[in-house]
């Protein structure tokens, strides 16, 4: 039997409850230290599959500004944040760019697209 304990800080409110998760053979045995049900649910998700939206920028060619801000359309697994940045940093997009345009399809094979979050006109 493999037992592990993980601490998770809840991000739901300024309290920042320190939630403890006890795991036995890959199954959550106990969650403690949460201040509300939302916090318990957050801790469960954050333990099983922590995900984040990745906001960054992509280089624009022939645009009025050199960059366009972008984000992953949905949260991606936390462990893909830095690898996804590598892929995004290689991308180039020709102006004009419109909010919502898909800049990169299926980033890091997550099934999630990177989309523009601003409009950039041509130079």
């Amino acid at each position: 039997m493999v037992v592990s304990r993980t601490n998770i800080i809840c991000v739901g409110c300024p309290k920042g409850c320190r939630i403890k998760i006890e795991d036995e053979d890959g199954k959550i045995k106990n969650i403690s230290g949460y201040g509300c049900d939302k916090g318990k649910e957050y801790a469960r998700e954050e333990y099983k599959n922590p995900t984040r939206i990745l906001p960054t920028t992509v280089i624009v060619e022939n645009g009025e500004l050199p960059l366009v801000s972008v984000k992953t359309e949905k949260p991606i697994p936390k462990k893909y944040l830095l690898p996804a940045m590598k892929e995004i940093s290689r991308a180039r997009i020709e102006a004009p760019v419109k909010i919502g345009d898909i800049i990169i399809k299926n980033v890091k094979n997550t099934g999630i697209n990177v989309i523009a979050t601003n409009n950039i006109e041509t130079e």
Partner: protein
Amino acid sequence: MEEVKQYNLVVIGGGPAGMAAALAAKKDGVEDILILERDKYIGGILPQCIHNGFGLEYFGEELTGPEYAYKFIERLQDSNIKVKKGTMVVNITKNKKITALNSEDGLLQIKADAIILAMGCRERTRENIKIPGDRPAGIFSAGTAQRYTNIEGYMPGKEVIILGSGDIGLIMARRMKLEGANVKAVLEIMPYSSGLVRNKVQCLDDFDIPLKLKHTITDINGKERVKEVTVAKVDEKMNVIPDTEEVITCDTILLSVGLIPENELSKSMGFSLHPVTGGPIVNEARETEIEGVFACGNVLHVHDLVDWVTKESELAGKSVAKYLTGKRSYRENPIKLEPGKNVSYIVPYKIDFIDFERKRIKLFLRADKPLENVDINIIHDNKILLKYKKDIVTPGEMITVNLPEALIKNKMKKIKISINKREEGDGSVQN
């Protein structure tokens, strides 16, 4: 003599406050509105805040800064509100005469029936907090570094130390890390981070960036470029503790050490600024000491959420419509809103009008220290009119409470708001 243009409403600043105020005034029937914006684009600081977390309160969905701004830019484009970009206002008189400059019109003279001040805020600098040491390149305010990184496409540096753990400092720690920098530490002089817990977890913990509480910079070393900083621990009184100094090599220092409302123009109009907020004194209509001149957003008091800026600015816009149509009646005595125990400030500062249409007045306030299990007591004449229970308050998170119109009585002259620990006894008033 140059031509003087006349507008019903001139809004100074095209950021989130200016945009929302102009649109709300328009919606309530104000014609001939002009927004003056000094930057090349409108949206204020939002286009460089490329991270998500905006809009949950106002739109009920999570947006990035540029997306939040675009919702208002789009509405402006569909309206007949005039926007002059690249235009710098240099003077405003008490009689609402505005002098502005741009490269197209040259010198502009504008007369307004009403003015909304929405100039936002600016960052405190190294000079404001007096960090000793050399003066090499590589020291930036966090917001300037954010603009370089996210708009202009320059990377401020490779080895980064951040002073200040407010939200901008935390967000920039992650941003620098994502772009390949080594963020060595975030220093915070207080015993707690003033940023949101969420930002602490997702910007620092996610990337193993250390947060050093009760630490500050005592020296900067470098000739051309920053070479190293000396950091030290501070005691409860924020005095440096001897022999705790530690030297960290780095080429870049980002300062996230607070924001100040940008009120140079307001000062030229002659009204006083509040010692705590640094903004003009306003009534519940967000009208300043000069009739017909309103202020909203970060020029009034620094907000932590843009959503509240939008709501406050819509109120200012609506107030302009009421002012211009003469649809308002003054109270016999204004009611002063006074900060009581554990409250650092309340906006608005007073209630000037009788208005039976409104059901409540929204009050913005801040706690002066973090406290758990508190009652926010609205007090008149040592009696609690209304009580809001809160699990936690911190100086970093603005508190909003509603004062129902039904509780406001004719003879009232002062209402006090206190934050009291619940253990302090429920019945008694401590202020």
